[in-house]
C-alpha cells in the first residue's frame, strides 16, 4: 500500500515536471543569467521586458484561436505579418499624405482586408493538408515570403510605376528605371521626438505613434493593473462559490498564493507610486529637470523607479482588448464550434458543424491579428528591415507561447502572457550567459537561437510523445476497453 502511494506521488511529480519542463528550464536560465551578470539593474531589465512585451504581445495572441480550432501552432502568422508589411510599405511610400498616427491607423485599415484574403487562402490550404497543418503553415510562410519579395523587389517599379529618387526605392542612376523597395527604411519619428534630420523627419512619422499617444508613470500603471487583478481574483472566487455548476474550480491554496502575489505587487505599487508622486510634485516646481536623479537628497529607490520608461497605455489597452476578445470569442457559438472542431473534426461534422468553414474563420482571425501585431511591432521598433524583420515572427511567437505552457492542442491568453515575459527574459539575459560561459557576448546570440528552436523541438516532441502514448493505450493488454 505504502509503496503504491509513494509511486503515485512520485509519478505525479514526474508528470508535473514533464509537463512544465520547458517553463522550468527557462526560469532556471533567467535566474542563472541574473546571478552571473552584473550588468542588469532592476530598471533596465524591466524596461527591456516591458518593451518586448508590448512589441510582441499581439503576435503571440494571434496563435491562440488556431490552436483552439485544432490547427496546431500557426507558424503561418508570417503570412499575416506580410499583410501588415505591405500596408506599412504603402503608407510609408506616401508618407507626405499620411503622417503620424493617422498613417498608422491607415496601416491597420489597409492591412485588415489583405490579411482576411490571405487568411482565407491559408485556411483553404490547411483544409487541404488536414493533419499536417503545422508543416503546411511552416512552408506557406516560406512561400509567402518568396511571393512578397518578388512583389516588392520586381513588381514595384517593374509593373507599378514608382518615383525615381524616392527614399523608399532602391537608388539607381538617372535615366534608369527605378525598381524595388529598399532593404531597410525608417517608420519616421513621432511628433515629440523629431530631430528635423533624416528621412521623413520634416513630418511626424509612425514610430511609437501608438505608444506615445498616452503614457503614464510605470508604477501608476502597475498600481492600476494590480488593483484590477486583485478585484478579478476576488470576483471570480465569489462567482465560483455561487455557481458550482460553472465547472470552474480553484483550490483554496491556489487562490491564496495568487492573492499573496497580487497583494505583494499591490503593496509595492502603492509604496513606489507614493514615492514617485511625492518627488514629481517636488519636481513640478523645477520644470527644467526631467529626471529625478538630478535632485539632491533623493533615495536610490526613487531614482531606480524613475528610470523605468513610462507606460504606453494605448498599446496596453489594445493588447488587453485583444486578450479579452479571445476570451469572449471562446464563449460564443463560433468559439464553441472551434473547440468542437479542434477536439474532433469527425464528431463536429456529424453534429452538423461546418468544419471547413470554422477552420477557415479561425485562420482568418489569426492572420488578421498577426497583421495588426506586425504593425504594432514595427511602430515600436521604428526601423524596418523590409525583407527580414518578419521572418522569425512565427518561430519566436510559437516558442513564446510554448514556454508559457501551451501545447499544439491547448493554448490560452494566460499562456501567451506568461510566455511573453519568460521568453523575452531569456532573450535579455542570453548575452550575459554567453559572456559568462564562453567569455563572448556574441555567444548569447547562439544561446537565443538554441533556446528558441530547442523549446519548439522539446515541446512538440513531448506533445507527440504523449499523444502516441495515449493512442497506444488501446493496443495494450490490460487497459480498457
Amino acid at each position, binding site marked *: 500500500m505504502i509503496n503504491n502511494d509513494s509511486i503515485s506521488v512520485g509519478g505525479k511529480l514526474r508528470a508535473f515536471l514533464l509537463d512544465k519542463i520547458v517553463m522550468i528550464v527557462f526560469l532556471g536560465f533567467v535566474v542563472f543569467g541574473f546571478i552571473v551578470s552584473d550588468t542588469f539593474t532592476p530598471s533596465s531589465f524591466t524596461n527591456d521586458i516591458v518593451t518586448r512585451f508590448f512589441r510582441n504581445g499581439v503576435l503571440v495572441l494571434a496563435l491562440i484561436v488556431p490552436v483552439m480550432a485544432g490547427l496546431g501552432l500557426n507558424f503561418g502568422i508570417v503570412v499575416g505579418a506580410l499583410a501588415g508589411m505591405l500596408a506599412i510599405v504603402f503608407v510609408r511610400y506616401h508618407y507626405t499624405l499620411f503622417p503620424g498616427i493617422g498613417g498608422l491607423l491607415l496601416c491597420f485599415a489597409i492591412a485588415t482586408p489583405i490579411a482576411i484574403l490571405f487568411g482565407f487562402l491559408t485556411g483553404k490550404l490547411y483544409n487541404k493538408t488536414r493533419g499536417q497543418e503545422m508543416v503546411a503553415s511552416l512552408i506557406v510562410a516560406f512561400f509567402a515570403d518568396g511571393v512578397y519579395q518578388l512583389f516588392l523587389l520586381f513588381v514595384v517599379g517593374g509593373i507599378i510605376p514608382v518615383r525615381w529618387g524616392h527614399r523608399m526605392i532602391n537608388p539607381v542612376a538617372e535615366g534608369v528605371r527605378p525598381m524595388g523597395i529598399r532593404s531597410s527604411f525608417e517608420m519616421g519619428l513621432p511628433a515629440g521626438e523629431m530631430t528635423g534630420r533624416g528621412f521623413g523627419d520634416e513630418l511626424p512619422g509612425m514610430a511609437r505613434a501608438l505608444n506615445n499617444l498616452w503614457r503614464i508613470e510605470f508604477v501608476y500603471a502597475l498600481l492600476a493593473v494590480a488593483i484590477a487583478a486583485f478585484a478579478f481574483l476576488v470576483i471570480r472566487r465569489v462567482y465560483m462559490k455561487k*455557481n458550482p*455548476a*460553472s*465547472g470552474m474550480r480553484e483550490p483554496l491554496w491556489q487562490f491564496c498564493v495568487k492573492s499573496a502575489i497580487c497583494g505583494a505587487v499591490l503593496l509595492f505599487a502603492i509604496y513606489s507610486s507614493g514615492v514617485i508622486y511625492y518627488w514629481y510634485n517636488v519636481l513640478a516646481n523645477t520644470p527644467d529637470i526631467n529626471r529625478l536623479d538630478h535632485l539632491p537628497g533623493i533615495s536610490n529607490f526613487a531614482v531606480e523607479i524613475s528610470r523605468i520608461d513610462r507606460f504606453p497605455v494605448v498599446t496596453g489597452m489594445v493588447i488587453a482588448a485583444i486578450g479579452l476578445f479571445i476570451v*469572449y*470569442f471562446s*464563449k*460564443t*457559438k*463560433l468559439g*464553441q*464550434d472551434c*473547440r*468542437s472542431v479542434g*477536439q*474532433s473534426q469527425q*464528431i*463536429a461534422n*456529424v*453534429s*452538423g*458543424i461546418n468544419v471547413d468553414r470554422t477552420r477557415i474563420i479561425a485562420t482568418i482571425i489569426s492572420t488578421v491579428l498577426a497583421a495588426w501585431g506586425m504593425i504594432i511591432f514595427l511602430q515600436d521598433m521604428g526601423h524596418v528591415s523590409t525583407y527580414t524583420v518578419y521572418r522569425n515572427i512565427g518561430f519566436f511567437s510559437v516558442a513564446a507561447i510554448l514556454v508559457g505552457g501551451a501545447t499544439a492542442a491547448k493554448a490560452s491568453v494566460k499562456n501567451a502572457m506568461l510566455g511573453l515575459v519568460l521568453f523575452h527574459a531569456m532573450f535579455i539575459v542570453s548575452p550575459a550567459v554567453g559572456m559568462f560561459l564562453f567569455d563572448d557576448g556574441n555567444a548569447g546570440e547562439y544561446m537565443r537561437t538554441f533556446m528558441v528552436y530547442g523549446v519548439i523541438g522539446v515541446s512538440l516532441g513531448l506533445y507527440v510523445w504523449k499523444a502516441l502514448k495515449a493512442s497506444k493505450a*488501446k*493496443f*495494450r*493488454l490490460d*487497459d*480498457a*476497453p
Partner: protein
Amino acid sequence: MSQNLLEFKSVSKSYADNQVLKDVSFDIRPGEIHALLGENGAGKSTLMNILFGMPVIHSTGGYEGAVELEGEKVEIKSPFDAMALGIGMVHQEFMLIPGFTIAENIKLNREIEKKNMLNSISSRLFGKRMKTLDFKQMNKDARAALDRLEMNIEEFTFVAGLPIGYMQFVEIAREIDKTGLKLLVLDEPTAVLTESEADSLLSAMRIIAAGGISIVFISHRLNEITAVADRVTILRDGELVVTKDVKDTNALEIAEYMVGRKVSIERASDEARKLDDEIMLSIKDLHVAMPNERVKGVNLEVRKGEIFGIGGLAGQGKLGIANGIMGIYESRGDVFLDGKQMALGKTRKMLSAGVAFVSEDRKGIGLLIEEPIDDNIMFTAMSIHSEFLTSLRLSDKNAIREHARKMIKELDIRCTSEKQHTGRLSGGNQQKVCVARALTQKPTVLFVSEPTRGIDIGAKKLILDLLLQLSREQGMTVVMTSSELAELCSICDRIAIVCEGEVAGILPPDAPPAQFGLLMSGVKDFEGEVAS
C-alpha cells in the same frame, strides 16, 4: 391513418451488382422496443443507413421501396433530415468530445445562445455565430435529460475519464434532449457495457419507451432481446426472415431464424474421417489486445491434421486469436506447438517453427502491394528459412522464377506474369498469392483468417478445396477463422464459436443451426442438450 410510427415498404438496395437488401418490409409501432437482429452482412447497417439518409446510400444510386413515417412517405436525404423528423441514433462508437462537459456534449451544435443587448449587437456586426452561450440554461436542459434517465451524475463533469457505461447514457441523453424525438436507434448499445451497466441501460430503455418514444434495438444478445423487446425482426442475407412478438417466441427459435438452414449445404461426402488424437496446437488462457477484436482468455486444443474452424460475430474476438499467436498484437497466455511452449509475440520464432499465417488484412499485412508476385510468394521463405538464395546469399532468380510459375499454375493465379505487381490483381488472386506464400514456407500449422472475404465464388471454391486438400493429403493442421458459418461448416472438422472474447462452445459441423446461433449470441446454458 396508420397506427405505425415507421414503416419500411419493400425496401431493396444494391451496391453495384451486390444486392444487400431484398424487398424488406416491416413496421415499428409508437412506444415499442423493436429488436433488430441478424448476422454480419445481413443488412442491418444498410437499413439504418437508409433510415438516416447516409451519403453512402445516395452516392451509390439510392434505394428502392419506401420509408413511411406516421403514414407519410418521407425522403431522407441526410442525417439532418432524419434528425428533423425526430429520428435519433446512438452509434457504436461514441460521438462524444472528451474535453467537453456532459452538458456541452449533450448540447453539441444545439447550444443555447444568450438573449441580451451585447449579443444582438455583436451578431449584427460579425454574424450569427458571435453570440455568447447560455451555459446555465444548457446545464439545466442537460440535467433534465439525465434525470429522465434516472442518472445522478453532475452535468458539468468532463466526459474524459467517465466509465464507458456513463458515456452511453450521455449519448442517449443527447438524443432525448432533442425536441420531438420519436424514434431512437440503439446500435449494439450493450456490447461495451458490464452486466450491471447493461441492466441499467435496459431499464432506461423501458423508461424511454414508456414515455412514448419508439426504440430500435440492434443487438445480438438474445437474452437481452427477450428481456426488453416487444417485437423482434430478423434479417438474414438481406432478406426479412420474420417479425414476431417476443412473447410468442424464444431464444432458441430466434437463433435458428438468425443462422438459418444454409449451414448444412455442400459438405463434401463425409468419409467418416478418423482424426489423430495427437494434439498439435494447444492454447491456454490467451489474451490479445487487438482493437475491436479483443481476446479475453481463450482455451483451445487443435488436433494434428484437422481443419479447425473459428467462427463468431464480428468484433467478438475471433480474429484476435490468430493475430495474437503470430505476434501482430500484444498478447499473453501459453501456446504449445507439438508439446513445446512457444514464446508469444515473437513473429519470427513462430514462422521458423513452421506456423504460417494468411492474414485477414490482405492489403495491410498480407501483401507487399508495390512488389511483384514472385517476391511476395518468396520473401517469408527467403528470410526465415534462407531458401531461394545463392551461395552468396543473393536471391536466386532462377529458383524463384521456377517456383513462382509452379505456384501460379497450381493455384490458378490469373496474372500477366510472375512479375506483375500484386496491387493490380483482383481480390481473389491476391488471396491466392497470400496462400502461395504461406505454402512456400512448408508449414505444419496454417492459420487462415477470412480466406474468402471479398472474393468471387470461383476463387472461393478453389481456396476452400485447397485447404481441404492440404489437410487430407499432406496432413497439415489448418486453423481457419471466418465470419461465414457456411464455409466453416463445409470443410471444418470442428468449429469453435467465439463470443465476447471467449470460446462459447465447440460444435461439429453438422450441429443444428440454432445451436450455432445461440453460441454466437452468448447463450451457453443449452450445452447439456448438445452433448446428448
